[in-house]
C-alpha cells in the first residue's frame, strides 16, 4: 500500500491535499459567524465528503484507463438518467433554492447529478476522440461531440443551472482543442454564441456578422458549413431579444448586475457589492482567520458555497488570495503535464477535459467574487461546501493519478 502511495504523482497528490486542507480551513471559518447560522458545523460533513471522495478516488485509481474507456457510455447514460430524474423529482437546496438541481437521497443527503455529469461528459467526449487518427476538420465531424454535450447541456439548462451548463460547453471546447481541431473551426462554432451576446447592440452585431462572413470566405470552408454558420449568426441576431425574455428574472438580473452592480444593490447586486467589500476590506494581510466582519455579520451571502473565496480574501488578505491562486495554478499546470505525458490518447483527453472543467470552475468562481465575471453560482473546487462536486473532483483527481501512474510505469520519456 505504501509502495503504491510512493509511486503516485507526488506534485498532484501534494497540491490536492494542500487545496483540500486550505478549503476545509476556509469552510470552517465560513461557519464562524456572530449571527445564528446553520453552516457552523458543515465543515465536519465536508470532512466526511472528503473521506468519501478519497475512497472513491482510490477505487477509480484501481481502474485502468481501458476499463474507464469501456465504462464511459454507461457512466454517461447513467448521468443522463439522473439528470432526467432530477427534472422530475428535483428540489432546490441551500443557497441555490431557486434551482431544481438536487435529488434527495434520504435524510440530509442530496445528490446534484449535474456535477457528476460533468465528469461523464469528459469521459464520453474522450471516448469519441480516442480512436481518431486526425483531428476533426469539418463541422459534420463535430456533430457527435456536439450532441454528446448538448443533451446534458439542455437537461441542466432546464434545471435553471446556467453556470453548470456553461461548464459543459467549456469542457467541449477544451477537449476539441486538445484533439487538434483548427482554431478557425472553433471560432466559427462559437460565433453564434458571440453573436447572441452582441445582438443587443445592432452595430456591434453587424460588425461581428461582417467579420464572420469575411472569415468564412477567407478560410474557404465547405459551402453548407458556411451557410450554416452564417445562418446561425443571423438567427441569433433575430432571436436574441426573445431569448433574453425567456431567461428567468434572476438570470437576467445576474447579467445586469454584472454590468452594473448598483442597478439593484439590494437583491442581485448585493452579492457582488458585499463580496467586493469583503475582499477589498481584507487588504494585504486580511482581517485574520475567522475574523472577517463581513462574513461574521452575515453581510456576505453564500459564504460557504459560491462566495467562499471572498472569505479567504477578507480574512487572509491579498497574501492568502495569492497563496490559494498559486495552489490552483500548480494544480492546473500539474494536470496539464499529466495530460501531455499520458500513455494514450484517451487518458490524455480525459485529463485535459478534467483540467478544463476545474479551470472553468476556478476562473469563473474566483472571477465573480471581484466582479470580473458575472455570477453563475458554480462551486470552487475543494473549497465550496457540497458533496457532489467534491466527490466528483476527487474522482477526477483519482483518474489523473492513475494516468500519471501509467505514464510512470511505462517509463515515460520525453518523446
Amino acid at each position: 500500500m505504501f509502495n503504491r502511495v510512493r509511486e503516485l504523482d507526488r506534485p498532484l497528490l501534494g497540491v490536492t491535499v494542500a487545496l483540500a486542507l486550505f478549503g476545509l480551513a476556509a469552510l470552517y471559518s465560513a461557519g464562524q459567524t456572530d449571527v445564528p447560522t446553520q453552516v457552523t458545523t458543515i465543515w465536519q460533513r465536508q470532512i466526511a465528503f472528503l473521506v468519501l471522495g478519497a475512497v472513491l478516488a482510490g477505487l477509480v485509481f484501481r481502474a485502468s484507463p481501458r476499463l474507464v474507456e469501456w465504462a464511459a457510455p454507461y457512466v454517461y447514460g447513467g448521468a443522463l438518467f439522473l439528470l432526467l430524474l432530477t427534472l422530475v423529482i428535483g428540489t432546490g437546496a441551500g443557497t441555490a433554492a431557486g434551482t431544481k438541481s438536487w435529488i434527495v437521497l434520504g435524510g440530509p443527503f442530496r445528490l446534484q447529478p449535474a456535477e457528476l455529469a460533468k465528469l461523464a461528459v469528459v469521459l464520453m467526449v474522450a471516448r469519441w476522440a480516442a480512436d481518431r487518427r486526425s483531428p476533426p476538420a469539418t463541422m459534420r465531424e463535430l456533430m457527435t461531440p456536439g450532441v454528446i454535450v448538448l443533451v446534458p447541456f439542455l437537461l441542466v439548462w432546464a434545471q435553471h443551472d446556467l453556470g453548470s451548463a456553461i461548464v459543459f460547453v467549456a469542457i467541449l471546447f477544451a477537449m476539441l482543442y486538445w484533439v487538434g481541431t483548427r482554431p478557425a473551426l472553433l471560432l466559427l462554432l462559437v460565433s453564434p454564441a458571440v453573436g447572441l451576446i452582441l445582438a443587443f447592440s445592432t452595430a456591434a452585431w453587424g460588425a461581428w456578422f461582417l467579420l464572420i462572413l469575411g472569415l468564412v470566405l477567407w478560410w474557404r470552408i465547405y459551402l453548407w458549413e458556411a451557410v450554416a454558420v452564417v445562418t446561425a449568426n443571423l438567427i441569433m441576431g433575430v432571436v436574441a431579444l426573445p431569448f433574453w425574455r425567456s431567461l428567468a428574472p434572476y438570470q437576467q438580473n445576474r447579467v445586469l448586475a454584472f454590468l452594473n452592480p448598483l442597478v439593484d444593490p439590494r437583491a442581485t447586486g448585493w452579492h457582488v457589492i458585499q463580496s467586493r467589500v469583503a475582499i477589498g476590506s481584507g487588504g494585504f494581510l486580511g482581517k485574520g482567520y475567522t475574523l472577517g466582519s463581513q462574513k461574521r455579520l452575515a453581510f456576505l451571502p453564500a459564504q460557504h458555497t459560491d462566495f467562499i473565496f471572498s472569505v479567504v480574501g477578507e480574512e487572509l488578505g491579498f497574501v492568502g488570495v495569492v497563496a490559494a491562486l498559486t495552489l490552483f495554478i500548480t494544480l492546473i499546470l500539474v494536470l496539464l503535464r499529466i495530460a501531455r505525458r499520458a500513455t494514450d490518447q484517451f487518458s490524455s483527453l480525459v485529463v485535459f477535459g478534467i483540467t478544463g472543467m476545474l479551470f472553468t470552475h476556478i476562473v469563473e468562481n474566483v472571477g465573480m467574487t471581484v466582479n470580473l465575471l458575472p455570477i453563475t453560482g458554480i462551486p470552487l473546487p475543494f473549497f465550496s461546501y457540497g458533496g457532489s462536486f467534491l466527490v466528483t473532483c476527487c474522482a477526477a483527481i483519482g483518474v489523473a493519478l492513475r494516468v500519471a501512474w501509467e505514464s510512470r510505469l511505462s517509463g515515460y520519456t520525453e518523446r
Partner: protein
Amino acid sequence: MNSFHPYLLDRRLRVAHALVWGAFVVIGVGFFRTQILEHGRFKLQSETNRLRPIILPAPRGIITDRNGRVLADNVPGYTVSLLPGAEPTLDAQIASLRTRLERVAPLVRLDSAGIERVVARFRRAPYQPALVMADAPFPVVSQLEERRLLVPGLVIQTEPKRYYPDSGVAAHLLGNVGEVTEQELGQRSGLRPGAQVGRDGLERQYDDSLRGADGVRFVEVSALGHVVRDAASSTRLRPEAGEAVHTTIDLDLQRYIARIFPAGQRGAVMALNPNTGEVLALYSAPGFDPNRFVGGVDPSYWRLLSESPAHPLLDRAIQARYPPGSTWKLAMAAMALKRGIVTLHTRMPIACRGGLQFGNRFFRCWMAQGHGELTLQEAITQSCDVYFYQLGIKLGLTSLLEDANGWGFRTRTGIDLPGESPPEFPSGTEYFDRLYGPRGWTSAVVLNLAIGQGENAQTLASMLRLYQMLASDGRARPPYVVHPAEGPAAALDLAPEQLAGLRQAMISVVQRGTARGAQLGSIVIAGKTGTAQNPHGPNHGWFIGFAPADKPEIVVGAIIEFAREGPYVAPLVARVIARYLGADTTEASEYKIVLPADTAPHEVQILPALPDTTGRDTLPRDTLPRDTLPRDTTHVQPRSRTR
C-alpha cells in the same frame, strides 16, 4: 501526422499554458486592484456596514443647595431605541423601521402617532438609533429582551435619568427636563436631536453647563440589523458629565416652607440674604412633580397641569404680578424721606377720621373709625391710608413715578431664572396721557398709587428687593440663585438713621401693629403686611419681613392668594425666619391666625373707564384689581395696560 504527435501536443500545451497564466494574471490583477489599490474605500464601506454609532448621553450636572445637598440628581434609567437596517436608501430604511416598530408597539404602548414621532426622529438623525421609549420601566425592558431576536436593531441601554429627590419641594426653582424640540434645535447650537434639555427653572437657565458632552459608542450590527456586540473600545468616546451647579438655596429652609405652607393655598414664599442677594428659598404653590416630566411627560398629567385653574406651572414668586397693597407704603415713606419732604416724626395736616375727601371723591381708610393724628412711623405701624394719601399728594405724582422707576419697580430683578415677569408700573405721566388723553386724568391717581393700588402690579421678587434694600444699607443686591446679575444696582439713598427709623416702624408693625401674630419672643422681626384687592374673590395677603431687625440676615416675602381667613402670611413668614435663624420654632408654633386689620380700602375710581382689550389670558393680569366699590355709580372696567 497523428494529431497527438508530441510536437503538436507541445504546441497546444504552450497555448494552454499561456491561456492559464493569462487568466490567472487577470484574476490576480483584479484582486490586487480590489485589495491593495481600493482597500481604503472598501475598508470604509465594511466599517459603515458593520458599525453603528450609539450616543451615550452625558449625565446632567447635579444641582446642590448651599450646603452641598443634592436638589437634582441622576439615577440609571433604561432607554429603548431601534437601529435601522442596512438598506441602501433612506426610504427603505424607514420602511423597515416601521415594520420593526409595529412589532414592538404593543410592548412599549406605542400608538400610530407615536410611531410617526419615532420615524420623524429617525429622519432627523439617520444612522443613529431612533429613540422609542425614553424611560422604560423594567418589566417592559425584560419583555423586550426576551424578544430581542424577533426585533432586529433593538438597542436597550442604561442612561442617566434626572431625579429630583425632593420632587415638588423646589419644582419651580429647578424646572424640569424634556426632549429638545424642533424649534430649539434651530435656535440653539450644540444640540442633537433627541437630547434632553432643561425646561424652566435652573435646568433651563444653566442648561449649557449642566448638559455636559455626550459620548458615543459603536456597536457591530449584522446584515439584518441585530446588534451583535460593542465594537472595539478604542472607538468609544466617553460621555462627560455636565458641571454641577451649586445654588444659594437652603434645602432645609425650602423643605420647611413646603411643609408649613398652608395646604391647598396658592401663593409663593421667597427668602433672600439681604446683604448679598442670595436666594435662600423660592417656593411657589401649587407645584408639580418634576420627576414626572423625565423621559416625556404623560399626556394626562400634562393636561392636568395645563388645564388646572390653579396654574401649577406658574412660578408665583417671579412670574405672577399682584398689587403690592400696603407693602408699598414703605416705598412711599422712603421716597418722601429721601426727598426731605417729611421726617419720621412728621404729622399730616388732616388727622385720620376714617377717610379723606379729595376733590369730589371720598378716599377711605381701612379703619372706618379712624387712626387719629399719627407720625410717619406710627402711620407705618398702623398702615394708615389717610396719612399716605396726604403723603402721596405732598410727594407729587412726578416724584413718585421718578423714584419708583429709579428703584426698579418696572424692571425685572434680574434673578437668574428664566421667564421672570417685569412688574407693571407707569413709566411717567405720559403713561396716563397715552391711556386717557392729556386732559383725561387728574393728579388724584397719586392717591391710589400711594397706597399700592392703581396702576401698580409687582412680583414677589420685585417687592422683596425693596425690603432687601431696607434691610441692608439701602443698596439693591439683585437676587440670584447661582450667579449674581451684572450691572448697576439701585439704591435708596437714605441716611442710616432714616433707614433705622423705618426699621423701627416695621418692628412696631410686628410688635404692636398689623402683624402682631408674627411676633417671636427672642427674635426681633421687622416687616409689613399688605392686602391686595382681588376682583375674583377674597383678597390676596402679603407679608414681607426681615430679622434680626438690628442686623438683618434674612428677608422673607410671602404672598397668599385669596387669604380670606386672614393672612396666615405673617406667622408663616415669622416661622420661616425663626427656622432660618435657628430660633426655637415652638415659640412661633402658636400658629395664631390673626386677621390683618389693614385690609386696603376699595380703590376709588377716579379715572374714566376704558374698554377691556386685554381679555383674561394670563393669571398675573387676573390678579390685578378689576372692580371697585359695588355702590360706585361709575361702571368700572379693568384698565388696559401696556406691557
